[in-house]
């Protein structure tokens, strides 16, 4: 009880400074440990600053200011990530809880960047939808904290908590348009199913703990490497897969996606279709490739095939753009999972690159949608997009590029992303999955194309108002556009960076070794 209340009351300060509580403890954490969670710290600081500032300001005017603070926070987080990237900070922190490596840096950067773009997108959305900005931005930042932690955590329980942070923040964000019935419905659906799935994940964790006596991924890896393959492990992996599969919207755990995406505010959808997904994929990567859990290959094979097919097929006749993009995100989760079926050497970088590319293009698409949807998200149907090519050429052109990237047309990130994934799977000689994949990418072209067709090749029946593009959105679009094109023209840097993390994940390098000792020590010091 005490601990809980302490947590609730002093929690926030605790999160940032070496608290008195902690300093009373023997061997307190070093500064390096805090630097290893620097981005999270920064984000939470800014989150709380927003919370403090919010009440002081007038509801109407505060939005811009709060937004700027949040944006600042996001950029600060990026800076922190870059600072963190210095070699001397690589390694484990907080007694094998987090691990800073290229992998985590990659995802931290990604998450922070996404957050920044989302905040930019939300800038005028707040006004249009009359949403309380303070909590909104704070929640986004805190959510980012969770996502960041997920990618750097190497301890299942911490992962679980981080996952919960990101999930709960998105549950709330999904329901932010409280006047809209669909928004709260989306929220409740997301929440209930989410917690449902989380319970599965947690049970899986429990079973893993039961099988290996530890929840530290490195220790688990060791135990498994040592040949402990009790059925508990398989059951645990299965249940964890259910939980994570739900979070990344992989079939057959994808059912929630369309409803939630349709109901949630568009910028939020842009956020939760990219950042948490990226983080969860990071977790999956760690679990599958770092912990070397057995027997997942065909599981992933099937899940990938199902996701791609269901997503693409179901999207064919969608008439609501947000829903359509939801289905497309299911399909893309499928493509991403394809990479997981490949060999680590090719699969990990492919998956990482894909998450980045997908984030860039999808968030861009949703940015356009959110702007075009207008007050109360009124214009989200296909026919609303008719003649957009004339009414707002720039908006249309940008959306077109994002859609082309989603199709996988050359010179866009989406093309390379798909290409690497398929290359990886080909190198794993899973030709069947390869064929399914390429066919899907062809089928999928259709419904993206439909939007383009509607925008450029049909004339509008009823004039849908298009407000001029505000600065924030413009910046957001520019950023995601640049990212998309850059990943399409010169993907080499990102890819090589992603490849460096292969060795970290797969091979047991020195920090891992120390971690294992620590882990066993921890397991031992129960008595």
């Amino acid at each position, binding site marked *: 009880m005490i601990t809980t209340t302490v947590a609730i009351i002093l929690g926030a300060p605790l999160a940032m400074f070496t608290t008195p509580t902690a300093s009373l403890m023997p061997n307190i954490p070093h500064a390096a440990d805090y630097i290893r969670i620097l981005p999270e710290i920064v984000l939470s600081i800014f989150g709380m600053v927003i919370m403090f500032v919010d009440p002081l300001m007038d509801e109407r005017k505060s939005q811009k200011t709060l937004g700027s603070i949040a944006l600042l926070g996001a950029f600060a987080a990026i800076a922190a990530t870059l600072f963190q990237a210095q070699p001397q900070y690589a390694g484990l922190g907080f007694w094998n809880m987090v691990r800073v490596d290229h992998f985590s840096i990659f995802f931290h950067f990604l998450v922070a960047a996404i957050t920044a773009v989302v905040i930019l997108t939300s800038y005028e959305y707040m006004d249009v939808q009359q949403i309380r900005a303070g909590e909104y931005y704070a929640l986004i930042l805190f959510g980012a904290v969770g996502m960041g932690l997920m990618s750097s955590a190497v301890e299942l329980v911490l992962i679980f908590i981080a996952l919960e942070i990101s999930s709960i923040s998105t549950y709330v964000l999904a329901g932010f348009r409280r006047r809209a019935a669909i928004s709260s419905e989306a929220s409740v659906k997301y929440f209930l199913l989410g917690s449902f799935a989380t319970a599965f994940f947690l049970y899986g964790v429990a079973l893993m703990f039961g099988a290996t006596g530890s929840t530290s991924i490195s220790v688990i890896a060791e135990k498994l490497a040592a040949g402990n393959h009790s059925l508990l492990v398989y059951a645990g992996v299965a249940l964890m897969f259910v939980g994570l599969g739900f979070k990344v919207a992989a079939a057959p755990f994808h059912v929630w996606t369309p409803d939630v995406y349709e109901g949630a505010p568009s910028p939020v959808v842009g956020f939760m279709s990219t950042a948490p997904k990226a983080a969860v994929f990071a977790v999956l990567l760690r679990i599958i490739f770092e912990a070397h859990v057995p027997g997942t290959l065909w599981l992933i094979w099937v899940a990938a095939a199902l996701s791609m097919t269901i997503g693409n097929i179901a999207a064919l006749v969608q008439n609501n753009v947000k829903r359509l993009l939801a289905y497309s995100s299911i399909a893309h989760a499928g493509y991403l999972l394809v990479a997981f079926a490949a060999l680590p050497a090719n699969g990990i970088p492919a998956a990482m690159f894909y998450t980045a590319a997908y984030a860039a293009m999808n968030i861009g698409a949703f940015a356009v949608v959110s702007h075009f949807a207008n007050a109360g998200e009124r214009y989200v149907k296909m026919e609303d997009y008719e003649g957009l090519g004339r009414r707002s050429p720039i908006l249309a052109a940008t959306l077109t590029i994002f859609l082309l990237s989603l199709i996988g047309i050359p010179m866009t990130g989406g093309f390379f992303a798909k290409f690497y994934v398929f*290359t990886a799977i080909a190198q794993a000689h899973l030709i069947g999955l390869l064929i399914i994949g390429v066919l899907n990418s062809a089928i999928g072209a259709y419904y993206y194309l439909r939007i383009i067709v509607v925008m450029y*090749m*049909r004339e509008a029946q009823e004039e849908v108002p298009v407000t001029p593009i505000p600065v924030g959105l413009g910046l957001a679009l520019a950023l995601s556009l640049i990212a998309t094109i850059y990943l399409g023209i010169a*993907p080499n840097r990102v890819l090589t960076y992603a490849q460096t993390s292969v060795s970290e994940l797969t091979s047991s390098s020195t920090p891992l070794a120390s971690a294992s000792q620590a882990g066993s020590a921890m397991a031992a010091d129960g008595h």
Partner: protein
Amino acid sequence: MNSATLDTAILSLVTFIPLAGGLLLLLFPRRHRDIRVFALVVSLLDFIVSLHLPAHFDRAKSGFQFQINCAWITHPNIHYHMGVDGISLWLVVLTTFLTPLCVLISWNSINDRVKEFFILLLVMETALIGVFVALDLFLFYFFWEATLIPMALLIGMFGHGRKVYAAVKFFLYTMIASVFMLAAILWLYAQTGTFDFVEIQQAIQSGHVAHFSGAALWLFLGFFIAFAVKVPLFPFHTWLPDAHVEAPTAGSVLLAGVLLKMGTYGMLRFDLGLFPEQSRHNAPWVMILALIGIIYGALVAMVQPNMKKVIAYSSVSHLGFVVLGIFSFTQLGLDGAMFIMLAHGVSTGALFMLAGILYERRHTYEISEFGGLATPMPIYSTFFLFVVLASVGLPLLNGFVGEFLVLSGAFQAHMWYGIAACTGVIWSACYLLWMYQRVFFGKVTHDKNNTLPDLNLRERTALIPAAVMALVMGVAPFLWLKSIDPAVHASLASSLTSVAQIASKVVGR
């Protein structure tokens, strides 16, 4: 810069000048005239630059020239590898030659969203050239896919009638087909660890590719289906008429003139180059498909009520000749196939331009709408007749040479195929002359047609180069064949040797 560096840079220049131009156009104000002029300048510039290739092309050598090969992406091992040989050389020039004409021909016909139009046109050009010069399978696929969108948009945005249907059909059809090629390419990469065409070829010939013998057929088919749809070969041809009829003139010109050649070029370069054995095994039914294409296309063309459809189906027929020539595996056949590609590009391109000119005046392609046009527009009808004759295959015009070579090649390979294909000579005369008669001869039936203005200066400047080219290619084909011949010979020879080697290996096992 000195010629050595120029030789390495030239292909990149030729390929990307249009793209650069397109990007510059983005920044242009929406003043139509400036945009048009600029587009014309860019395309002309590119044409002039591209003339460097034939000028400095060493016809003695058979290998690739003007190569540039540098690592683009380290892992997967993708190279920025470009180069031309006698086969691709002329296709590149053809592209750069046609684009300025396209710009000219769409000068007035496009008044809405001019900027988008010309940007798309230039991007299109880059992609097309890229396809022909790419020697890295990835790069090839990159450009291959890149051609889809501009063309689809050109059709969908600037077309007419059921433009959307046509655009979507075109896009999906070719997209779905080409993913099979992607799969094949990836398989090859997985086995050889490289996308480089030359290296893969060597690997295959030296038998260093694991599980190749088992997969070869599927790989061949994977490539073949993609190409067959592009060509288009008989059962896959239905997208072509729709696309053509709805497309704007420039679109049709590039579509018929160059885009279809991507397919035949691909067959020549990749199917023959990488899977000679399979190509030979499958040659019979491929040739039969080609035959069906020739005759069927011609017959259907004959009964079309729509000028552009006639021309479109005639393309099906002509491309059938090309495929026939390629899969005859004879020097003559391959030379002829190459030559038809170029000739068809010029003459059919010209045909579409002419059709477009008529459309500008009457906004219809229905043959029944015309008749007796020779009276109001003598010059136009003369040009039209000239081009028709060229594509009918009158000696001394470009159509004949290729047809003759292909037919004799096919005849040598399989006599009866040759004979059957030879009937195409009759059909082409039938449908084209019939169309010509219905459009130009007789009395003027619609009053509107009485007042049609004849060609103006711009249109003539657009048409004359094509006409002249048709004549020159007919009179002096050796200028082209001189560089085509060795390349074809080399590819044939290499395929022969590789077949021999594979055979010997089979024997060896």
